[in-house]
């Protein structure tokens, strides 16, 4: 039986580094009703090819369709559902937190526990940089929100299969 429950999938897509390729891929998700939780794009190990990592949710049938439809794009070279394997997924967030000078030590304590870093200090704010899996970043945000988050920017997940695969 195929699984009809909605699960999160992290899909790696190796594409030709051509103008419009991001539009081809994201457009496909949009028009076929596949959702995109996050999308990251950058250089790959091979010149002329880029790697996109898309986090999506869907049942087995949807994910199978996503893979097959992606392969129909001429500029798509390879599609791998990373979450079918043991994988490392990481994202980075920059969080600007309201902080009067007196509150700084308390916030810096939190940041340290998370192995995050303060990368900028303003007169009334701190900028925190945190790297980790999605859950870790969610937790950092939750802990900082009582102080007042003025601005938040997340990169979305990039990921790789563990080991020699």
């Amino acid at each position: 039986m195929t699984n009809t429950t909605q699960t999160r999938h992290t899909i790696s897509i190796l594409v030709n580094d051509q103008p419009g390729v991001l539009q081809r891929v994201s457009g496909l998700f949009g028009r076929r009703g596949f959702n995109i939780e996050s999308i990251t794009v950058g250089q790959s190990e091979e010149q002329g090819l880029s790697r996109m990592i898309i986090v999506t949710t869907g049942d087995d049938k949807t994910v199978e369709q996503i893979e097959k439809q992606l392969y129909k794009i001429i500029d798509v070279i390879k599609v791998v559902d990373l979450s079918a394997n043991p994988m490392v997924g990481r994202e980075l967030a920059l969080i600007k937190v309201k902080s009067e000078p007196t509150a700084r030590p308390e916030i810096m304590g939190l940041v340290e526990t998370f192995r995050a870093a303060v990368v900028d200090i303003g007169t009334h704010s701190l900028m925190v940089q945190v790297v980790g899996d999605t859950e870790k970043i969610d937790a950092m945000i939750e802990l900082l929100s009582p102080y007042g988050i003025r601005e938040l920017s997340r990169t979305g997940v990039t990921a790789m299969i563990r080991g020699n695969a």
Partner: protein
Amino acid sequence: MSAQMPEARSTEELKEKWVDKQEVLTGSDILLRSLVLEGVKCVFGYPGGAVLYIYDAMYGFKDFHHVLTRHEQGAIHAADGYARAAGEVGVCIATSGPGATNLVTGIATAYMDSTPLVVITGNVASTLIGTDAFQEADITGITMPITKHSYLVRSVDELPRIIHEAFHIANTGRKGPVLIDIPKDVSAAMTLFQPHTEPVALRGYNPRMIPNKLQVDRLAEAIAQAERPLILAGGGVVYSGGHEALLELVNKTGIPITTTLLGLGGFPSGHEQWLGMPGMHGTFTSNMAIQEADLLISIGARFDDRVTGKLNGFAPKAKIAHIDIDPAEIGKNVKTDIPIVGDVKTVLELLNKTVTHADRADEWRSQLQQWKAEKPFRYKDDYKEDEIGLKPQWVVELLNETTKGEAIVTTDVGQHQMWAAQYYKFNNPRSWITSGGLGTMGFGLPSAIGAQMAKPDRMVISINGDGGIQMCSQELAICAINNIPVKIVILNNQVLGMVRQWQELIYENRYSHIDLAGSPDFVKLAEAYGVKGLRASTKAEARAVWQEAMDTPGPVVIDFVVEKGENVYPMVQQGMTLDQMLMGDE
């Protein structure tokens, strides 16, 4: 036909003429020569500012024929009709902005029905792209969801490679339209012409032709075991050239067969095992066969909703085998037990080597034969020979009888399309040209022009409604000026018939905005273009004018004034399963 096609020349000749010479040429000259090297004999197009260099290069150019249509939509539908009739890539050219956007419907039509097209658009100069320049439109962006692939040419040096790739992509795997957008400065720029003739190698594009042998063996085994097997054959049979292999399969196994709208002609309609078309307006026998089958073998068909009816309840008793060149079609709509990815012709030839007669299906065959005899398409027709009144079905039967099913028939979209599909009995592939997937009104006339250009020796009949014919009737000019001898049939019921039918059956006779009063006198319209126009309102007139039309060497418009309230039956209403058919008044 006065539109003379250029003599096809051998690649050696062309090679000598162009390839081996080191010549510096404009992008426009390179485009034209590259098209000829791809085997292009006929191009449909419309000039404009951004393609002026291309049209300048075409001045006096004799190596392919250019047909100037009267609207870009006419050009692309004509290219589509050409491609479907010839089994070659259709080509059209339009200018930037509105020229390009006028192609959009035609591109979507070709995409939905997997027609191979290379669509060439001009664009504003590279330096102006992105500035909202005059007649600028982002046509590669606009058409991304409806093209198999597209190119924005950035340098004249890329042009030969891109054209060669475009033809390869359009005409291999699951076929489809490929767009090449050429900025004006690229068509003017000069470079050394280095033609691309070597095989295309694209890392991201390797259509699977040869199927998994294990799955083919599983299918052969399933056929041997089946008691109620059925073949559902679609457009893929025609596109792959697999019609002979399909006939062999049916003859070997004795499996009954139903052909989808786009599959018509892919199997001879006179064959004992042929059950007709399935789906919304399919035969009783086809639909019941699908619902009762224990093995349904889909061959180059994609389980469109007009074929399946309500998905949950489609072929409930059947094990499903699905043969398709496009892996994404397998399992998309219907859960598949035996998936076979590969070229239909290749798969069938392989299957034919191992398959044996379906011995256990004798009872099934006789059941289907009984239904076929008892429940053919039917309509009530009490009109006497000289009485005013024509049934549209009767007119299609007249066309069928007088041409013995040997004409190429194109249609527009609506009731007349379904009647043509039901009552014209096709014997050959590439003889039935209709917009099945997108359902594009305006397709009938221009696609017939394209088909006639591809097949000058065949009779081409374009069957239209009085609604759709008005969406591209300007192309009558092309028929007249080029003496393209298409027979343009209008089943004129003075109403948007299919909409009327749905409003009658589903919207409780609330006939909203379907009256086509104010349409032109189609005989006079034809005459205004210099095309012969004829009209018939009785059976006797119909026989006479149709004979006259067939005897006329040039184009003819025949306006058949048919009954207004006629509906297409059987009908499976949306949301119903295939066995829930309205049979109409029998």
